[in-house]
């Protein structure tokens, strides 16, 4: 466990170039940190993210963990750049390996001149450009516990990359100040142990210089957090959910955020209870949401259909992961869209709203809550694992852009002026003016049975047709209320990209790379997926010769929905698909476009 003090504290594997050369200047850097679950790879990534942010860089970070608490390979990637980014780089510049498996897994991803920093108290490596430091034994012998080895690794990285020492230290203080004073002290010591070990090595010092950036007004967040904040700002005050990767953080954030606003968050006994609890709360007049992923969504389908026909507003955030069944709980996919578009037995209206950026996660959650409340139906907030859990810099969330729209909710005076009050009153746009139950003179009887305007069970054929039209035509009447796409790139380009969710990042980066290579493209980032926005997709498709529909599933589900709605553009659509559990990277898309239609 402990290393004798006389033993060499560093191990240099392979042949390193002499340490005398000038530091390599980096403006776009990717670091991969790998080890066993519990090695603290996420902490290293977090510390680096904090450092880069403080130096004004844009940051994007993803993690790759197995569905277990400890053990098994876990890695975390972080990218920092002087330019805005929302995807990982194709290649890694620095690999930090706490075990040999991390080297084996990370090696194919490395740039030719990448560095490998490894824990030589765990294993040895003779690879060129591999620098070994016995982090675990160094820290263990000096601090009594090896668990601070991750902070020591951060210290070594700070030396290698010529980090500003003051900022480096400040990051540790910020990260551990809320823990015990002992934890802060030991982490500060571990930082110095790692830093000193690297400094003592000629090859370990100032190998690189990471350029500062000017992205100082950015926030750092993940999609799940932006969704949780959006829900609070939208006046959401009731949330029930059931833990499921990759959605759980939404519930965890709301458990912290909502109580000060007299909001209620409940962890339910299952997803059936979660969806039905929010249905009950919605009936009582609260703005409600639940969040889940594929397996939970399957269970909630019953309740979502009920909300659709009982006309009770609910927002369901679906954080997509690899399916079906348990699939790959921690991995990325976009394979629920076909299910959601046709969700449930029978027919009922629903909107599917899909944020593509962290800002979108915030603003479109507010929109989703408003849309559900106004149109009195279920709204699916369609997310994906990468968007939900990868952390990234983002422009600040702007509260002045938030609004609350209760639709046709009646004031007390408006209610008093009515001669009759019918919960399901027929109207032109299908929205029945309402007050929450508990108001004198406004009884509300709701049911999942077909019902008349009073909410009484009815099988009258004439009423059935009127009620079906009342509900289903909301999807037509709401057309101009639904979030529009965002367009990027050259408006006259003949090559188009269509995508939604986290593919925004790789598509935007691919567009920039293609433009540098003289290939102009335009990108329609769909933000309302259902009802299919033919009024935006049709003109876009008319203007291009070919449209690459980028999505993470086998069948090309979004492309199929577009084809069904706009068969005239069938021949222009090309599906670009990935369903290996990992996110697209920009070079994948560049290569596909360069291949030609």
């Amino acid at each position, binding site marked *: 466990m402990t290393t004798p003090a006389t033993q060499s504290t560093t191990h240099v594997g392979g042949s390193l170039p002499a340490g005398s050369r000038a530091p390599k200047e980096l403006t776009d850097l990717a670091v991969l940190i790998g080890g066993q679950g519990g090695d603290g790879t996420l902490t290293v990534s977090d510390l680096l993210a904090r450092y880069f942010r403080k130096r004004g860089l844009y940051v994007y970070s993803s993690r790759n963990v197995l569905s277990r608490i400890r053990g098994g390979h876990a890695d975390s990637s972080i990218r920092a750049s002087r330019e805005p980014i929302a995807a990982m780089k194709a290649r890694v510049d620095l690999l930090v390996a706490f075990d040999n498996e991390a080297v084996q897994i990370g090696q194919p991803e490395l740039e030719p001149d990448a560095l490998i920093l490894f824990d030589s108290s765990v294993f040895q490596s003779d690879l060129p450009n591999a620098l070994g430091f016995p982090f675990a034994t160094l820290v263990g012998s000096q601090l009594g516990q090896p668990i601070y080895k991750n902070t020591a690794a951060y210290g070594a990285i700070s030396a290698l990359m010529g980090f500003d020492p003051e900022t480096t230290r400040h990051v540790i203080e910020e990260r551990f100040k809320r823990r015990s004073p002992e934890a802060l002290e030991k982490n500060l010591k571990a930082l110095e142990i790692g830093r000193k070990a690297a400094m003592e090595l000629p090859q370990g010092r100032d190998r690189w210089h990471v350029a500062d950036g000017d992205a100082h007004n950015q926030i*750092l*967040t993940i999609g799940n*957090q932006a969704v949780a*904040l959006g829900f*609070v*700002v939208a*006046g959401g*005050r009731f949330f029930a959910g059931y833990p499921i990767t990759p959605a759980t953080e939404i519930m965890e954030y709301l458990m912290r*955020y909502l109580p*000060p*606003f*007299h909001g*209620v968050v*409940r962890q*339910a*006994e299952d997803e*059936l*209870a979660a969806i*039905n*609890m*929010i249905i*009950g*709360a*919605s*009936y*009582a*007049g*609260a*703005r*409600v949401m639940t969040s889940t992923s594929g397996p939970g969504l399957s269970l909630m389908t*019953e*309740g979502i259909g*009920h909300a659709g026909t009982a006309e009770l507003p609910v927002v369901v955030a679906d954080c997509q992961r690899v399916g079906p069944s348990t699939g790959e709980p921690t991995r990325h996919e976009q394979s629920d869209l076909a299910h959601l578009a046709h969700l449930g037995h029978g027919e009922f209206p629903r909107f599917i709203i899909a944020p593509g950026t962290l800002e979108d996660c915030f603003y479109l959650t507010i929109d989703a809550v408003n849309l559900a409340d106004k149109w009195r139906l279920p709204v699916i907030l369609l997310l994906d694992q990468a968007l939900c859990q990868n952390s990234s810099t983002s422009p*600040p*969330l702007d*509260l002045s852009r938030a609004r*609350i729209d209760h639709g046709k909710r009646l004031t007390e005076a408006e209610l*008093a002026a*009515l*001669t*009759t*009050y*019918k*919960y399901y009153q027929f109207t032109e746009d299908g929205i029945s003016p309402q007050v*929450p*139950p*508990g*108001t*004198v*003179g*406004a*009884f509300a*009887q*709701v*049911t*999942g049975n077909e019902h008349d305007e*009073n*909410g*009484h*069970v009815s099988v009258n054929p004439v009423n059935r047709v009127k009620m079906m039209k009342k509900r289903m035509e909301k999807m037509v009447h709401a057309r101009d209320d639904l979030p529009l796409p965002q367009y990027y790139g050259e408006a006259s380009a003949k090559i188009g990209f269509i995508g939604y969710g986290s593919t925004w990042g790789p598509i935007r980066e691919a567009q920039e790379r293609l433009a540098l290579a003289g290939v102009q493209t335009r990108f329609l980032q769909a933000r309302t997926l259902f009802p299919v926005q033919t009024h935006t997709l049709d003109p876009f498709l008319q203007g291009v010769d070919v449209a690459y529909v980028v999505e993470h599933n086998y069948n090309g589900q979004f492309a199929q929905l577009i084809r069904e709605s706009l068969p005239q553009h069938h021949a222009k659509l090309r599906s670009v698909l990935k369903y290996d559990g990992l996110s697209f990277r920009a070079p994948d898309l560049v290569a596909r476009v360069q291949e030609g239609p």
Partner: protein
Amino acid sequence: MSPVSVKPVPSTWCPGCGDFGVLAAVKKALVEVGVPTHEAVLVGGIGCSGGIHNFLEINGIHALHGRLLAQAVGVKLANPKLTVVAAGGDGDGYAIGMGHFIHAFKKNASILYIVMMNETYGLTKGQAAPTAPIGYEGNVEPPFDAILTALSLPAHNFIARTFSGDPKTMTAVLVEALRFNRANQGYAFVEDLSPCVTYNDTFKDWRERVLDVSKLPGYDPTDRKVMFQLCLDTMEKGKIPIGVMHRPAPKTTEGADSLELKLLPDRIGPAVTGIELADNLAAYDKLIKSVT
């Protein structure tokens, strides 16, 4: 002036159905306790009993099969001012809704849940419910006993069993249960023996077998152990124990509060209000800046 709102519709139940007793007792109890009609919400399940709210001038939810408790808890937590009564059948509550049934005791929201127990699925024409005796419609599984289960769950709940053939006692029990709820004491569960006169007419049999446990020596509804034994002894004699089975002693321990008191200690008010942007902008700004 208030607008004319929903009016009751004629009942769909068979003449002589035990559920009429429940409907009458619910109505009487709400009046006796003094619940303003607009502040009451009746949540029905699926099955004959599930339409109960349609036959009253009241706020009502016709929930999904087995999900009425989850919806009722949602209503209560979103607006604790409302008096929430869930009422459904034993198939709804003890079969498809069993997960929610158990968790309702644990949650301890101050709602009243009445199960109209008739041992059968009447609406689908007489299949065995989880409470059906062995032999009923080919049933080979022993019947589920909700009262014994309820007594086994340590929580600050009110638990009782009543009989539709004795509407006076039923009303008195419901009054007590509603008062328990309205004092934010916690969850109240009442199983009412409510025979299905068409598929399992047990009126005569049950009238002969029901035994009011409060008349037995040693009756102490604050002591679960005593009541569990009393119920078992009664059942072993071929009788059906009825009466108040658990009336918790006044709260002495911390954490025994009802769910709404735990979650909203400062404000037992509706989650519907206080959500406008202007009122919260400064707090939102502070929250966002502190966490991102």
